[in-house]
């Protein structure tokens, strides 16, 4: 009888330990929605990023995935763009402070610029509890990314939705 109990323990213990590891793994990552581009329209994809005690770090991970691009659809931010810091200000506004590649590596053009602003904003709004977004590069507030889309003010969710539906006819 003792022998049986030892065998049962040996058989079930690793399984039990494995299950515990899996549950830790599941809780240590979070599902996120990313917005990429296809034929001039934003399309959604799902992915996972590591959970972090600091929401700022989770935002960085999400923007890293956005910059890494997608196999199925087109990127909305340059490959070397990185979110350097995030500051959550009053009115639940997220101040996204990018590195300079966010601007210098942007190909330009009005439509591409719209897709960049809308793609980043939709991604942040979809995954984090913020009401506004302000773009910065190296600590300086941006007026535009490539000379066209006015991002001088905080961008709200309704504005982001409106910009995402930029094609009217």
């Amino acid at each position: 009888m003792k022998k049986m109990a030892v065998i049962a323990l040996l058989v079930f213990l690793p399984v039990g330990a494995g299950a515990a590891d899996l549950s830790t793994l599941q809780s240590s990552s979070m599902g996120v929605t990313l917005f990429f581009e296809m034929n001039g329209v934003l399309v959604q994809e799902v992915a996972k990023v590591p959970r972090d005690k600091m929401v700022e770090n989770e935002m960085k991970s999400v923007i890293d995935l956005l910059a890494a691009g997608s196999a199925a659809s087109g990127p909305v931010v340059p490959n070397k763009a990185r979110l350097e810091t995030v500051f959550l200000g009053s009115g639940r506004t997220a101040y996204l402070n990018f590195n300079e590649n966010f601007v210098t590596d942007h190909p330009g053009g009005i439509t591409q610029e719209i897709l960049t602003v809308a793609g980043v904003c939709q991604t942040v709004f979809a995954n984090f509890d913020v009401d506004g977004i302000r773009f910065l590069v190296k600590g300086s507030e941006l007026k535009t990314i490539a000379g066209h889309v006015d991002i001088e003010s905080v961008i709200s969710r309704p504005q982001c939705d409106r910009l995402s539906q930029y094609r009217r006819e």
Partner: protein
Amino acid sequence: MDYNARMHRMVLLFSLMFAFLPAAYAEQTLTKLDTVVIDPGHGGASTGARAEELTEKDFCQKLAQAIKEAVEKENGQAIKVVVTAPPEKDPDQRDRAFAANGAGGKVFISLHAASGFAPTPRMLGIYVQDAPQGAEGTWREAGKKYSVKSFQLAEKLKEALDGFYPSNRFFIGRAPLTDFNGVAMPAVAVEVVQLNSQLQPLAPDMFQRLASAIYSGLVEFDRRQ
């Protein structure tokens, strides 16, 4: 009726038809838009989008000159054409708007070239202003009262430009663009070409043909005023 009489009648019929055609189609002059403002995007150190050696700045400058020539060819000196940015400079938006408004512009066409992270061809945009949040009462919504006419202008340019490229068509879009800040007249911003698209080789006569298409859109808009 014998054969000769029938032929005679047909010739007469065709003559009458063609006699009225010039009145309908040869009227290519502007009558109400006495001042046309062409705003070439970027300039100076700001090259804008680029594809190999061609920059958005150079493309827009060449097209602006071609449109100016097209307007002058049809109207002589009766219509004033204002180009907001000389080739060597990139005036800020305040100066561009001041040049347009100060000249008494009746219509403002901002010229641009599209680009993208990938060379996949996209539809090209003809944009009208969608004033951003916080713009109320500021110069950023100077064109608000012209929004209907701006949309009409966009429609006419779309009609004129659709079909220009075999692979690309145009759409009308609304976005909060700084290119419209301070501009108090019907205004559009047109992406006339996608520079990084391999499916759009630039033909030598492209500027003249694009200018001609844009001018015909202007004529149609003029007729609606």
